[in-house]
Every structure is written in structure tokens, then in C-alpha cells.
């Protein structure tokens, strides 16, 4: 008998995945208890880049927290700007001019595309395909350049203000956005031919990593994870904010519950975001980008307020508690991948390690947003 055959006991061993591992996309550690190649228990260990944003919020004024919102999900920072703006505007009763709302939607959706493109590249990289990453980064680069011209930064945006925006967009931005959409439209079939229809990718994703609708509900999973499990829920549709009700778009839903379903949801969302941007550019009204009068020091009335937006990874929501002063009394940040990752332990049980990494990639984790 060989040594391997003899050792066929119930023995397990512990492997640390991370905190510095390319598949964890940041500093996440997963303590894996392995039974051979199979996972017995995968326990995510968080907090390596915890920065206590919620305490930071209580120290400064309402406006001073805005830059922090761009530093949680660094891939879809504008959605976090958006969520915080909506929460404070709701609390303080600030009206937003229509042009500002349209520009918010345009820039937020452009940012969503850039986020999904990076996820696409990195996910395929996790699965062993290097080339798509380079193509995706090529496209994403155009977007970052475009957004840089209006927001002034490339990644950690702080572009929205209470009641409006920091900066108006110009003709170059509008033309650049249209040119980018034209370019990406022509590239999407290539992505699908190169990657989606690739037999190796299909074998790595189809029927791998099932997450049932019931598991999503019990763990509060959101975003493409939820929609890949057949639940049609998108904050932009179900709890409409800004000017989304005036724009025509579909919510991609796949009911296969596997990694492929989550992959397809995100790929389809890129198409839908392009539709939203085109319509918003067509409808873009003239006018101011800031309300005429916004008080320098905002003091929302006492009480608590809740606001949710659909970020690239799911529902991002903010709970504000105001005591009527110029500083937040309490600000709770509910980040989508925190909930999405919390189901990882249950979902990955009994999976092959390589498949579990595909599952992790399909959750689209952004660690600074989990750790906050």
C-alpha cells in the first residue's frame, strides 16, 4: 500500500489563503480546513484594512465625510458618493436640479461599467486566463481618462455634493462618452466570443458554486449574486431614486444560481448601463448643477434616515442618525460584499479548492468595502 492510500483517514489540515494572495484581491485571509482537495470549512478572516469610517463620520461635519465614501469601494466609488448624497439630501430636505441628477446617473453608470470591466478581467485571471484582463484594462483606461476630466480623480472619486455636483460636464465629455459606448459595443461581441463561449470557462463556471435564492435571503446577499439566483431585485427599479424611473432599462436575471449566472448578470449589466447612459445623454437638460441655496453648515432635523443605492456589487445603504447638529450622530454603512462574503462559508463547503476560488471570484469582492 502506498503512503497516500494508507493515510486515508478523516484527517484534515489547515491552509491559509491570503492575506496576501492574488485570488483574494486585496488583504483578505481565508482559513481553509481542507480534506484533501475538498474544503471542509472556509472561514474568512476580515479586518486587515479596517479604517473605522463610521467613527470618522462622527468626528467631522456632514460634508467632511464625503471623501471617505469614495474610499470604500474603490471600483465603484461614485455609487457610494451617490448613496451618501441621497441620504443627507433626504435628511436635510435638499432638492437636486435635474441636470445634476442626469449627470449623476451618467457618471455613476460609467463607473459601473469600469467596475464590471475590472471584475471581468480579474475574474478570468483567477480562472487562469491572462489575456482578457489586458483587453478589459484597455477599455477601462478610456473610462478612467474620461471620468478624470470631470471629477479630477481616477479612482477614489469625490464628485457629488449635497444638492448637486462639484463640476459640470462639457461637450468633450459627452462626445467622449458616446465614443466610448460605440467602442465598447463593438468590443462586447469579442468578449463573448473570446471568453463567454470558451469551453474551458464554461466548464469552470457552469453548475459550479450554487447559491440558492433561499441562501441569498437568509444572508442578505445582494446585487448580481441575488440576480444570478433568480431574484429580480434592483434598487434602481424597486426603490427608484434620482432619474432612473425616466430611463428605460432591463434588470438581467438568471436563475441558474451558479457562477456562470453571476457572470452573465454582470456582462448583461454592462449592456444595460450603456443603454442608460445613451438615454441620459440624449435627455440631458440644460440648467444649473447646484441648487441656488445650500447652507454652508447642514443641520438635518433630529431623527434617523435610510438611503439605498444599487452599486456594482449590490445594495449599498446608509443609515443616518442626526441629533440636529452639524455632525452625524451615527452613520452606519451597509456594504454589499460584507453580506455576500458572509455566505461564503456555507456555500463553499465540500467544494474543490479551485472551484471555491471561482466562487469567490464570482462574488466580486472588494476588501476595503467589506472592512470599511
Amino acid at each position, binding site marked *: 500500500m502506498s503512503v497516500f492510500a494508507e493515510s486515508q483517514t478523516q484527517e484534515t489540515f489547515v491552509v491559509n489563503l491570503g492575506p496576501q494572495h492574488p485570488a483574494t484581491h486585496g488583504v483578505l485571509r481565508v482559513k481553509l480546513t481542507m480534506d484533501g482537495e475538498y474544503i471542509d470549512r472556509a472561514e474568512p478572516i476580515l479586518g486587515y484594512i479596517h479604517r473605522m469610517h463610521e467613527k470618522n463620520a462622527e468626528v467631522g461635519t456632514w460634508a467632511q465625510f464625503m471623501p471617505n465614501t469614495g474610499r470604500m469601494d474603490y471600483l465603484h466609488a461614485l455609487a457610494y458618493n451617490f448613496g451618501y448624497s441621497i441620504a443627507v439630501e433626504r435628511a436635510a430636505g435638499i432638492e437636486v436640479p435635474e441636470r445634476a441628477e442626469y449627470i449623476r446617473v451618467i457618471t455613476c453608470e460609467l463607473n459601473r461599467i469600469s467596475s464590471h470591466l475590472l471584475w471581468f478581467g480579474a475574474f478570468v485571471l483567477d480562472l487562469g486566463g491572462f489575456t482578457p484582463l489586458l483587453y478589459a484594462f484597455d477599455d477601462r483606461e478610456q473610462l478612467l481618462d474620461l471620468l478624470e476630466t470631470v471629477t479630477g480623480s481616477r479612482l477614489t472619486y469625490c464628485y457629488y455634493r449635497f444638492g448637486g455636483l462639484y463640476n459640470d460636464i462639457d461637450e468633450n465629455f459627452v462626445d467622449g462618452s458616446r465614443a466610448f459606448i460605440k467602442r465598447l459595443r463593438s468590443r462586447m461581441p469579442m468578449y463573448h466570443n473570446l471568453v463567454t463561449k470558451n469551453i474551458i470557462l464554461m466548464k469552470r463556471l457552469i453548475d459550479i458554486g450554487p447559491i440558492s435564492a433561499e441562501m441569498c435571503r437568509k*444572508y442578505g446577499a445582494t446585487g448580481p449574486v441575488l440576480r444570478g439566483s433568480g431574484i429580480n431585485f434592483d434598487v434602481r427599479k424597486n426603490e427608484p431614486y434620482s432619474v432612473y424611473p425616466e430611463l428605460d432599462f432591463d434588470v438581467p436575471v438568471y436563475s441558474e444560481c451558479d457562477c456562470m449566472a453571476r457572470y452573465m448578470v454582470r456582462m448583461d449589466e454592462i449592456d444595460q448601463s450603456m443603454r442608460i447612459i445613451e438615454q441620459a445623454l440624449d435627455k440631458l437638460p440644460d440648467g444649473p448643477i447646484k441648487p441656488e441655496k445650500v447652507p454652508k453648515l447642514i443641520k438635518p432635523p433630529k431623527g434617523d434616515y435610510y438611503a439605498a443605492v444599487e452599486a456594482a456589487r449590490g445594495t449599498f445603504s446608509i443609515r443616518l442618525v442626526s441629533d440636529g447638529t452639524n455632525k452625524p450622530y451615527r452613520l452606519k454603512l451597509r456594504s454589499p460584499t460584507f453580506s455576500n462574503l458572509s455566505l461564503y462559508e456555507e456555500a463553499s463547503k465540500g467544494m474543490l479548492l479551485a472551484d471555491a476560488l471561482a466562487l469567490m471570484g464570482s462574488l466580486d469582492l472588494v476588501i476595503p468595502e467589506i472592512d470599511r
Partner: protein
Amino acid sequence: MSLAKVREALAALVAASQEELPPEEAIESVTEETPEAAAPEGEQAEEAAAPPPPLVDTNHAKKGFHLDVTVAPDQVVQAAEILDGEKYTIEAVTGVDWIKEEQMEVVYDYCDTADFSRVVIRARIPRATPELPTISRVFPGADWHERETHDFFGITFVGHPDLSPLLLPEDADYHPLLKDFTA
């Protein structure tokens, strides 16, 4: 639809707790307000003073949620079961430190994704002994949220499988979101 059902069940739950604890509530409102407060004035006092009415239909456009329910600390599991029965999902669990009132508030955010509505459940616990039962057996997703709340506020969720620090360092013995926390 499910919001109406949940509202009914939660109203019954709140009513049950008020039957159990009328003397305490009465004492509170009397001590904080004028002693000769009559019954109608007592209601007003409740609005003005710290404890809000236990069940409020909120304006979603203004507040961001539809229903705001305050339950007794030992009822949070029952409330979670009611919401679980109507297929609500757990969005977040968090705390608020009301240091002036010597109380801590635990806030549960629920959301119905099928027939959209948001429900908030709150419970107030004494600041000196912040304890209440865990809902992680009803919603496994609450596990991490409760651990996070324990990290930040030191609130003990009785029956929770593992309250070791989640986001804070593993040897952390401080709770940064307490209002009297100094670094």
C-alpha cells in the same frame, strides 16, 4: 401585502410587551415629565421625550423605510421570526449609543425583495448591561452583523456562536463607537 401582514403581527407583538410592562413605562414618562401628567398629556410626553411610539408607519420618501417598530429586547427573535416567515431578508444590524439616556439601541434593517418594503426593528437596552438575544439562528447572515456590532459597541448577543472580533484586531478590548471612547 406582506408589509400589511408583518405590520399586524408586529403590532400584536408590541401590544403583548406593553401589557407585560405597563408600570415601568408609566414610571418613566412620569419621572421625565411633570408629575400631574394626565392620560392625554402622557401621550404627548411620549412623543416629545425619549421613547417614541412603538410602531410608526413612516413616510418612505422622507425616511427611507416603511415601518419602524420598537420591541422589547427579548422580543427581537420573535420579530425576526415574523419577518422570516414573510420572506424578508436581513440588510444590517447595528447599534446606536445614547449616552445621555444611558441606553444603547440595536437596530435591525429588513427588506422584502419580492414585494418591496423596508422594516426597521429597534430595541433599547441599558448601557451598563448591553445584552440581548441573537437572531443568527433565524438569519445566519446576522452572524457577522452582530459580531461587528459587538466589536463597535460591546453589545453582547446572547447565544451567538462566536463573538470574537471581526473587523477589529483579534486582541481588541475596546469599542470605538461608544461615545465615551477615547483612542
